[in-house]
């Protein structure tokens, strides 16, 4: 059954590959480029991201030595941008993975135990959905101070309630379907039923939700870093660069424009891919 479905989707994918719209192809290439940059940031970067070049301070973009110009300490904007992309993507991927795992697990627990557990999970999802995340995140940062692991963990609390709601709803309806009942009759343990049978069947919807949460995590992290409360110097992230570039808006707008453009295009690309996946994988989620 699983093999057949796999082959089936593989075949469908092969046939329809040329049918990928140009916008989606561009979005995928952009994301792939971002991933390559994130993986090899320090190797590709022409300079160290903290390396000073005091003779070339606030150099405009377009010169041979510094394609994207330099900041007021003569640090190469391109090199900083590449390292920032790595940090921002690391946080975004880490946080999205945490929130997907936590949310799906809680959703499954709610669907499995029902009763009090379900009420508790639903209460927490309502609470999370009703409080603006930025405010809660700021409160936690105020109380605990800041570090990269804490920031990733904190951002991992973002969006979990959506996975929990979706996973709970879909698992409840899957439980009522034949295949779940069949494996249950075959004495499969609950974890086997949920992880091996129900999860693959609802994965497409969860993946689509990921494409919605991921760009929001990028925006949230860059917002926090922009305010100076996220990633701390000397480390840099896209939001940090924008926040820093803001001081030089009049004299050197390129410091802020390069990371700002990267944020906008990346969130746009993920949304474009997400919309396309949603149409392909999950016609019910319109």
């Amino acid at each position: 059954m699983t093999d057949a479905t796999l082959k089936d989707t593989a075949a469908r994918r092969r046939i329809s590959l040329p049918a990928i719209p140009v916008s989606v192809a561009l979005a995928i290439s952009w994301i792939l480029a971002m991933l390559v940059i994130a993986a090899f940031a320090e190797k590709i970067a022409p300079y160290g991201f903290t390396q000073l070049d005091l003779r070339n301070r606030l150099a405009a973009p377009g010169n041979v030595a510094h394609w994207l110009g330099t900041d007021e300490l003569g640090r190469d904007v391109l090199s900083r941008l590449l390292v920032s992309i790595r940090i921002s993507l690391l946080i975004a991927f880490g946080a999205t993975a945490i929130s997907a795992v936590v949310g799906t697990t809680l959703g499954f627990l709610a669907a499995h135990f029902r009763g009090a557990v379900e009420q508790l999970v639903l209460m927490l999802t309502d609470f999370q959905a009703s409080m603006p995340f930025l405010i809660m995140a700021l409160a936690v940062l105020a109380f605990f101070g800041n570090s990269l692991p804490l920031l990733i963990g904190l951002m991992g609390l973002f969006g979990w309630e959506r996975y929990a709601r979706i996973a709970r709803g879909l698992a409840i309806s899957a439980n009522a379907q034949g295949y779940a009942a069949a494996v249950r009759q075959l004495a499969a343990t609950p974890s086997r039923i949920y992880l091996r049978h129900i999860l693959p069947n609802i994965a497409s919807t969860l993946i689509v939700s990921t494409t919605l949460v991921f760009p929001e995590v990028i925006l949230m992290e860059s917002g926090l870093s922009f305010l100076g409360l996220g990633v701390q110097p000397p480390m840099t992230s896209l939001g940090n660069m924008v926040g820093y570039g803001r001081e030089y808006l009049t004299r050197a707008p390129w410091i802020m424009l390069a990371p700002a453009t990267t944020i906008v295009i990346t969130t746009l690309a993920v949304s474009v891919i997400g919309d396309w996946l949603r149409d392909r994988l999950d016609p019910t989620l319109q």
Partner: protein
Amino acid sequence: MGRYFAIRIGRAALTIVLVVTFAFVVLRLSGDPALMILGPEAPPEVLAAFRKAWGLDDPIWFQYLDYFGAIAKGELGRSMRDGRPAIELVLERIPATLALTLPAFAFKVALGIPAGIYAALHRGSAIDRAVMIAAVAGFTVPSFVLALLLVLVFAVQLGWLPSGGQESWRHAILPIATLGLGGAAVLARFTRSAMLEVLGQPYIRTASAKGVPWRKVVTSHALPNAAIPTVTILGFMVGTLIAGAVVVESVFAWPGVGRLLVVAVANRDLAVVQCILLLVALTMVTSNLIVDFLYGFLDPRLRAKGAHA
């Protein structure tokens, strides 16, 4: 109806309890309050006296109840920066925040809702496409980038408007535009899809088929039904006004609650942060309650259900 509201009010109270619990847990997890307030150099006797005075030696559940009691009485602690009651600091910033967020909210509604309705009624038109593009931009361009772009164009390049501060009404234009533009795009897209959803319903076809003029179909069948989801998102927007102001007030050096929050977080001024957290929760809960109340008026089905329940 009564039961409907009783449940809503119960949930609102529960949310407030959860926020207070959240603040309490985070506060206690983050370290010994005595050490944090008095500093690590404080002599042990002073620390002990402080703990005794503030009940920090009591069992944790007792402290928890105490904490609730203090908050219920409006005792939200003092700012560690200047020693004034945190609630005073927060309250005096509220007018400045409202001066930005209320006009921005009016702007969002005045621009977003008509644009969304028009786009839905003229699907595929130039305006429809413009609304969709604006909506995508509203989602992908974060407010701090939009704010800086507006500053770059209108303050730096054109020199028409000041880039920050609160001296005159001209200082408020760019922050209001930043808040309003992003929100209007979101609202337009939301209204559009709510309208499209309603326009696809069988009762619209029935109304058209029995010869009701299109204008009347829209005003008395489509709009009232599309109002329900739109009111939901409006309520959510009212609830997130302060959160939205955090970034914009920081960019434009506007002395409101949002900026106070950022400064308080950077200084770890816990009493102020906690006070703003509660203020946000109260705003959120109140706006949700108002939305629920409006549902009662907008949706006759809810009234009927409430009467029978």
